[in-house]
C-alpha cells in the first residue's frame, strides 16, 4: 500500500476543514480526488505533502509518516501544484539541476530523462530562460518536467488540465500512464470530469470536508444507481443531494 490517509482531521487553523477523511492510493494506481471548490481537495493535498500537520489521524507513505522521518517521506513524493511556482532567480536549467540535487539523483541519468521531457513539452530551447519570461502554461510544464524527473513513488498532481494545451494534456496523461506501469502511484485532483473518468482507476469524492463516496466508476454506479452513467452525473447528483 503506497499512501494511506486515515481518519485525518485538519485544516489551516484550529477550525477543521477536513472532518475525519480516510482513503488510500495503491501502487500503480491513479486516484482522482474530486470535489467542488472549497470541498477540501487542496487542503487534503497540503496535508499529504506535509505543508500542514493533521490535528488528528495519520498519513502513511509506504510505512513512513512525516514525523518519523521527514526526509524519507518527502523523498518519495513529487508534487505539481495547481498554480505554478518557480524560483525567480533560477533559469530553467537551474531548476532542473536543483531538483536533481534536492532528490539526490544521478545527474547524468537525470539529464537524459530531462532532455526527453523537455523535448516532449517543447521547452528544450528555453533552458536559459528566467521564469519571468514564461507563460503560465510553460511554467506548468516546467513543474511537470521537474516532477517527472524524480523517481518518486507518489505523484501528487493538483488540477493539471487547466491551462495546458491539448497536446501537453495528452503528453502528461501518457507520462502518468508510463509511471503507473513502473509501479508509481498518482493522486490527482481535478474538475475535468470526463478526462478523469477515462484515466483514473478510482475516485475519491470529497464534499464539505468529508469523503462522500469512493471506489471505481462501476462501484460508484452501483452505489448510486439512479444517478446516471457518467462520473459527471454521479458527481452532480451527489452535490444535489446536499443542496436540497
Amino acid at each position: 500500500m503506497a499512501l494511506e490517509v486515515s481518519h485525518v482531521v485538519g485544516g489551516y487553523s484550529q477550525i477543521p476543514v477536513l472532518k475525519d477523511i480516510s482513503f488510500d492510493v495503491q501502487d500503480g494506481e491513479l486516484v482522482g480526488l474530486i470535489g467542488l471548490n472549497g470541498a477540501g481537495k487542496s487542503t487534503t493535498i497540503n496535508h499529504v505533502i506535509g505543508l500542514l500537520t493533521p490535528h488528528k489521524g495519520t498519513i502513511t507513505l509506504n510505512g513512513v509518516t512525516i514525523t518519523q522521518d521527514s526526509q524519507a517521506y518527502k523523498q518519495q513524493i513529487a508534487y505539481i501544484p495547481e498554480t505554478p511556482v518557480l524560483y525567480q532567480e533560477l533559469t530553467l536549467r537551474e531548476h532542473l539541476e536543483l531538483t536533481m540535487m534536492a532528490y539526490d539523483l544521478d545527474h547524468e541519468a537525470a539529464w537524459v530523462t530531462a532532455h526527453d521531457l523537455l523535448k516532449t513539452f517543447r521547452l528544450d530551447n528555453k533552458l536559459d530562460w528566467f521564469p519571468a519570461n514564461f507563460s503560465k502554461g510553460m511554467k506548468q510544464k516546467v513543474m511537470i518536467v521537474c516532477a517527472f524527473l524524480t523517481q518518486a513513488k507518489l505523484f501528487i498532481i493538483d488540477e493539471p488540465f487547466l491551462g495546458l494545451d491539448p497536446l501537453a494534456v495528452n503528453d502528461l496523461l501518457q507520462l502518468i500512464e508510463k509511471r503507473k506501469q513502473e509501479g508509481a502511484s498518482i493522486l490527482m485532483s481535478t474538475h475535468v470530469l470526463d478526462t478523469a473518468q477515462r484515466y483514473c482507476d478510482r475516485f475519491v469524492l470529497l464534499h464539505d470536508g468529508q469523503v462522500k463516496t469512493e471506489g471505481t466508476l462501476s462501484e460508484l454506479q452501483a452505489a448510486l444507481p439512479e444517478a446516471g452513467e457518467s462520473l459527471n452525473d454521479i458527481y452532480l447528483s451527489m452535490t444535489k443531494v446536499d443542496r436540497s
Partner: protein
Amino acid sequence: MTELFHERLQRHLREMAKYLRLVFNDFFVFALLFFLGGLGLGYSNILKHLKADQWWAPFVALLILAITAQIGRYATLIEDADRVFLLPKERAMHAYFVQARKYSLVLAEIVQVIVMFILTPFLRVALGWSLMEVILLLIAQLVLKDALLRLDIASAYQVTGQRRMNHWSLKWLISLVVLVPGLWLTPFLSFVLILFIDVFSWLWLEERWPKQQIRWREQIKIEDNRMLGIYRFFNLFTEVPMVAGTIKRRRYLDGILRLVKPTHSQTYLYLYSRGMLRGTEFSGLVVRLTVIGMLLLYFVRGQWLPIFLAALFIYLIGFQLLPFFQQYDDVVFTHVYPLTEQQQVKSFVKLVTLILAVAAALLWVIILIANPTVETAGGSLVVELIEVWYLARIYTPQRLARAIKNRG
C-alpha cells in the same frame, strides 16, 4: 472621469503624506536644514566674488535650467486594472489624462519657479541681466515645462505609430533649442520660440488624439515605474511593502556560482547563492554598505576609530542578511523537497560567512591603505576575524533556530 482622477489623487496624496511624515522625521529635518544652510552660505559667497560677464556662466545656467525642465514627471495614477475596466471608456479617458496633466503641471511648475528664484541672483550678476530679462526667461521656462508635459500626454496615444513623443532625447532637444538662444542672445527669443512650439503642439495634439487608441500597457508601465521610483526613495527611510527587488541575469557571475558543487547537501547553497547574486534587493544592500564603509574608512584617520567603524559595518551587513533566510518560504518546493532544516541552516551560514569574509577583507584593505599602522591594521584584522566568526557561526544559527520555531 475628472472625478475618478480626483478620487485617486486624494488617495495618492494621503499615501504620500503618510510616507513623507516618516521621511521628514526630526532628525532628517535637522540634518536637511544644516545642509541647506551650508549650501546657501556657499552660494552667497560664490555670488559675492563673481565677476560680470563670465564666458562659462550661460553654460551653467543652461545645464541647470535644462535639467530642471526634465524634473516633474507626468503622474497619471492609472492602474493595471484600468485597461480592463476603463477600456470601454477610452474616449472619456482624455478628460482624466487632462486632469492628471494639470496636477503634474502644478507640481512641476512649482519646482521651476523655485529653481528660477534661486538662479535669479546668479543670472543678474554673472550674465548682467535686468529683472525684465529674468522674468521673460522664467515665463519661457514655465511654458517649456507645459510643452514637455504635452509630449507626455501625447505619448499616451498612438499618435505617431511606434515612436513615442516623450523620449528623453526629444525633450532635451526642445529644451536646448529653446534655452540656448535665450541665454546667449536674448531671453525674448526663448519666449517667442517656446510659445510657438507650445501652441503648435497643442493644436497638433487636439487634432490627433480623438482618432487614436490609448497605449494602455505602456502608460501603465510608465506609471508603475514612476511609483516604484517614489517607493524606492521612501524605502531608504522606512519599510515600503511595494518595493520588491528585481532580478538580473548577471552572466559574468556564473563563474563564481559554478564553485558550488551540485550535490545533495549543497542544494540550499545552490539556491541561496543564485538568489543573492541575481536578486538586487540583498546584494544591493551588501554592496551599498560595503562601499559606504570603504569610503568612510578611506577618509577616517585614527588608531581605534577605523577598527570600530569596520566592526560596525560588518555587524550591519550581517544583521541585514538574516531575513534572506526566509526568502523562499513562499515557494512550496522549499518545503516539499526532501531536505532538512539543518541543511538549510548550514547552507545559509556558509553563505553569510562568505559574504562577511569578503566584505571584511575589502574593509581591511582600505584600513591598510588609509591607516597603515601595526596597531590599527593588526587590531582590526583580529577584531574582524572574531566578529565574522561570531556573527556567522554563532549568532546567525541562533537567530535562525528562533525563526524556524516561529514558522510552526
